[in-house]
């Protein structure tokens, strides 16, 4: 079963240094926070979509499409409860709060997509290396990347386990959301047990190969910033600077919006 998150392509985006990709991720994160008005968020959204396209990561995004859909719909509805405006639409929905909700949804979508792009194009070790080179302790970097590594393992065992239960007559495909969730609960027991078991072996294997044996450690993987990295970084620094300037100058706000 193919549950890996990393997509082994050789796109220009894959070839970027992990540090560049982490910084780009942070730049978008900051940039997207600078605007409320969805119209002002369109450039950022386009920037994200271009990256998604160049890095060929759409496949991974597609895998979480249901999560994205549920998230987007609830975001578009729920933000209306936390804001109001001057032009009523119906019930708690105002034109301004609706704009605001759409803006927040673009924000969430952009950040999630950037996260997916980052892990789809960066090997685990590169991610650790990137984080270490940016000043994080090795163990912290390792812990973060290990938790990412667990995702495909847990997904794979969930798949096997749901197959095992379906073979026994558990019908996971019918019923409403509540019924389905209820039916899924028993599956979690074996998922947890097998995950704990795997983690245990993983821990033993790590220690048996000398994890943390010495204070200092060499890194076999070498990373080199190239001209492309600097070009991309320059572009994104300008993007962040412009976004912050626009924000300070008062652009991108929704007139008449009151947040609670």
């Amino acid at each position, binding site marked *: 079963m193919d549950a890996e998150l990393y997509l082994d392509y050789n796109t220009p985006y894959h070839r970027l240094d992990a540090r560049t990709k982490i910084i780009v991720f942070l730049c978008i994160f900051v940039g997207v926070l600078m605007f409320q008005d969805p119209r002002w968020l369109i450039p950022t959204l386009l920037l994200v979509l271009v990256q998604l396209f160049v890095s060929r990561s759409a496949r991974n995004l597609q895998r979480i499409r249901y999560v994205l859909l549920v998230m987007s719909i609830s975001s578009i509805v729920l933000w209306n409860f936390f804001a109001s405006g001057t032009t009523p639409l119906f019930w708690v929905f105002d034109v301004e709060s609706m704009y605001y909700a759409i803006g927040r949804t673009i924000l969430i979508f952009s950040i999630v997509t950037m996260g997916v792009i980052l892990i789809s194009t960066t090997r685990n070790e590169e991610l650790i290396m990137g984080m270490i080179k940016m000043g994080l302790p090795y163990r912290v970097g390792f812990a973060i990347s290990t938790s990412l590594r667990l995702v495909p393992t847990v997904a794979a065992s969930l798949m096997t386990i749901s197959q095992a239960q379906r*073979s026994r007559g558990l019908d996971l495909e019918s019923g409403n959301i509540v019924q389905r969730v209820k039916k899924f609960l028993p599956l979690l027991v074996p998922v947890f*047990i097998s995950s704990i078991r795997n983690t245990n072996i993983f821990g033993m294997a790590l220690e048996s190969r000398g994890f943390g*044996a010495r204070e200092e450690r060499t890194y076999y993987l070498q990373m080199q910033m190239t001209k492309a990295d600097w070009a991309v970084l320059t572009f994104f620094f300008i993007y962040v600077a412009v976004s912050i300037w626009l924000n300070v100058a008062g652009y991108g706000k929704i007139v008449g919006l009151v947040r609670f």
Partner: protein
Amino acid sequence: MTEPAVAIHDLTYRYRGTKQNAIEGINLVLERGDFLVLMGPSGAGKSTLATCINGLIPHFHKGKLEGAVIVCGKNTRDHTVAQMAEDVGLVFQDFEAQLFSTSVELEVAFGPENFAVPREEIATRIDENLTYVGLADFRNRPPSTLSGGQKQKLAIAAVLALHPKVLVMDEPTTDLDPISKMGIFEITNRLRQRSDLTLLVVEHETEEVLQADRIALLKDGRLVKVGPAREILRDVDLIESLGLMPLGIPRFFKAIGFDDTAAAAELPLTPAEAEVAYRRGGWRISSAAYEAMVARETAVEQSFRAKTPLIHCCDLEFSYPNGVKALDGISLDIYPGDIVAIVGQNGSGKTTLAKHFNGLLLPTGGTITVNGKTTKEQGIFRLGQLVGYVFQNPDHQIFSETVYDEVSFGPRLRGLPADQIKARVTETLKAVGLEGTEEEDPFSMTKSGRQRVAVAAVLAVQPDVLILDEPTTGLDYREQRSMMDMVRRLNENGSTIIFITHHMWVVAEYARKVFVIKDGRLFLEGTTREVFSHERELLEASLRPPHFIQFTNRLGRTMLRPAELIECTEGGAA
């Protein structure tokens, strides 16, 4: 005098929260360059002893340790596991869980990195060790794309990259197909030539441990016997009494009264030795007896072919969403009441094929019908009533707090009345040999116990067909036998049985018919005898008959069991 590589003194260990010692009073010394194999039934303490050597016990698994383990002069009590890693390498049975890097070379680099080995030196070690295990061409591949055997080889390379003086392997081949197994043993054999490396291997497979210098037999946490490999293996009665698999060849020769006391007449152990001994002993195979035996089998085969097939595959194809073709035009028939084995290399498509039989997977090409209707129109819920599927790992299946809840899950889902459910549970638990365990917690049972619970849970809906995916993996010989004897009883009571396995002796002993899958295609098919007579073709599919069958193939006939050869043997006492 040089100090021994491993010295174990009066070692007793008890896991925290348990009442019994896992190992007790172990004394064992391994000199440098020694190759010792540790054998014993499930729960004998083999893994416990193995993990004592690199300090996982007592540092990782907490508990009460008495005595001492000294490895290369270091007491494991005073050094962390990571510190010991330079001296002791440990390879685990589970080849999935012990690899964690995204490329083969980084996997090997991980150990030396931790010991601050200079980068250029790491590069050299990667080359050297990947070449050693034969994975040099795979250095940039993600480990997840390797086959099971290759993963285990990678695990060995990753450990060897630390240049350990002692290498411990805990059942490295249990989950592998016969040829991948051989690949690992081939590496082991080369390793043993290295005088600087001491090897300790925990192993189930008696046929493969002939190469060892010594064998230590372990039972209930105590050493039963330590001695030269051939001497221990010749003692088939002792091995069998410990619940281990005795070699078929010495067992046969003992049964026909081979005179072990005569000068230069050592009880043969390998197929080559056996052939010589058989011919020298003046024994012959009676063609008439053999042909009569084959004729009986052919008659049975004819009677099956006269029936309507229960499962019928025609040009079955299956591709995963990512485009990988797992099945490529398989056509086969399975008849009601049969007992069939599906064999093949790791990743050949066996499990994918079996998952079509109960509708878990639907073909992307060709057709499959069960009981005359396609699996698609029947759906998994209805098919589940007809075709039960026991997954490889019982822990993927079991989730209830009591055996009763677990076994009654299927009947309850299918809306049976309460009294009938109760009767069903009692009946199925009896069938799997677990009567009276209704109130027990399945998670606290042994692996073979959980395996039986899983089978019972599937049997409880009374399917006509039972599919078992690797029912004997992770069990010791005695447990394997009793599991398969149970499966055979179910077959005799009318169930159609399809099992997937890597254990060739299980196939030889229990299957009537065999399908060999290779690269998603049906490579060979026939009665068990026919299939095992094609030794060369089997080799292409990474399979190999058990030693005993290899021996009879050398004699020109295929006998599945010692009893058959005894029946067909004439002459002797020349």
